[in-house]
């Protein structure tokens, strides 16, 4: 009996996975979990900054689709890049993201993270709206774009007051590549350079 139920449940999940339609409520729960994870990471005084960065890298890798985001921000240059350049870019992209957040975490002062609501988008994804409430009452609205892929929920974009971080970075990286004569290597060098400034 148990096996049959399990099979049915798997089938349902499999079908859902095929449709790639997700319940907005599930995405909300997913975001809530991540928010709690990050807050506990920030409030844990027993770990070093290095450990904190490592744990955040773990969250980034398991909760975000870094490859899809990296591909998006490289835009049309993704197709021109060699496999080697792509690999190097994705690694640098991930590391600069971790490093930039690690420095932001140092300034953390008891902000609250609240989930507001969620809605399904025409492209099959879900937007979860949330806000960060700062100690002085200032509110920063953040939307999260979530898709389901192979039965797993992943974050694909962070939208700050209607500004997509994916689009912002794509435009910035395109500008760097264009100034570097259209070579992918230009952005990789710039990111490597950036990484050294965080140390």
């Amino acid at each position, binding site marked *: 009996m148990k096996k049959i139920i399990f099979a049915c449940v798997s089938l349902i999940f499999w079908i859902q996975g095929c449709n*790639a339609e997700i319940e907005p409520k599930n995405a909300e729960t997913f975001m809530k979990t991540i928010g709690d994870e990050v807050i506990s990471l920030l409030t844990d005084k027993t770990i070093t900054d290095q450990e904190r960065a490592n744990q955040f890298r773990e969250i980034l890798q398991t909760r975000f*689709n870094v*490859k*899809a*985001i990296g*591909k*998006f*921000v490289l*835009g*049309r240059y993704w197709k021109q890049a060699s496999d080697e350049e792509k690999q190097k870019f994705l690694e640098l992209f991930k590391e600069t993201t971790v490093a*930039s957040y690690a*420095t*932001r975490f140092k300034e953390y002062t008891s902000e609250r993270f609240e989930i507001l609501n969620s809605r399904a*988008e*025409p*492209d*099959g*994804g879900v937007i979860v709206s949330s806000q960060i409430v700062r100690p*002085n009452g*200032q*509110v*920063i*609205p953040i939307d999260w*774009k979530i*898709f389901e*892929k192979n039965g797993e929920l*992943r974050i*694909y*974009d962070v*939208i*700050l*007051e*209607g*500004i*997509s971080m*994916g*689009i*912002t970075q*794509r*435009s*910035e*990286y*395109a*500008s*760097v590549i264009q*100034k570097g004569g259209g070579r992918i290597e230009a*952005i990789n060098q*710039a*990111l490597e350079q*950036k990484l050294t400034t965080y140390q």
Partner: protein
Amino acid sequence: MKIVFSLLFFLGGLLTPAHAQEDAWSYTTDAVHPGKELQLSPQEREQDLNPSEDTDNDPFEPVNRVVFEFNELVDTIFLEPLAAMYEGVVHEFIRERVGYALRNLSEPLVLVNNLLQGELGDAGETLDRFLLNSTYGVGGLFDVSTDLGIPYKKEDFGMTLASWGMGAGPYIVLPILGPSNLRDTLGRIGDYGFDPINVWGYSADKELYCDIRTGVQILDAKTDNIKIIEDLRKNAIDYYATIRTWYSERRKHLVRKESEAIETPRPDEDE
């Protein structure tokens, strides 16, 4: 000290008060609601339907970059230290009151823009906000309207032009004022001319009040944004390009219909 303030007000005179309060990249406004109906030009609609990556309409980039560097210089040697001083000397409670009072004084202009856009419902709410906050909010020092469920909703003439179907046009970095585009530059001029507070000020020979208001608005906006600017500067690879996108996307967001989706990364097949 007096010189510093005179200089500030001199600079203030160069600025259009309507926008000075809200910096281009301010992302911490209390209540942002996307604009309502929006008529897009065929070109813009095309762009919205087939989002191209080359949306950075910046034909004057070389000139813009020079002006941008100049603005950075003015910011770092003059405006930011002043803002830091304001933040250090004036208590947060007072600064917040100042911010609300300034926003209250910008409501008549919002009302004008509501009317120009034919948004009578919004116009009614703006009028309610202004009357409530000016009276029960002690001359706008407290935002009682938001507590009563009528949150602030930004409108300016640039957004009005967008609602009439005008495209953003090329990106322009204005001296001291910072990021803009052709439409929003016209919008600033319009706002300056239409602002009932300015109209009153200039007709009643109270230009000084207008200039003081502008000066404090710049200070208020800088103080609000100082942390964000610091963060962007530190983490950007190409700060100019980041600000350009930040501004363009923010303005797009303000005139976007609620139903319009933003293009974002998405899963694809060959992963």
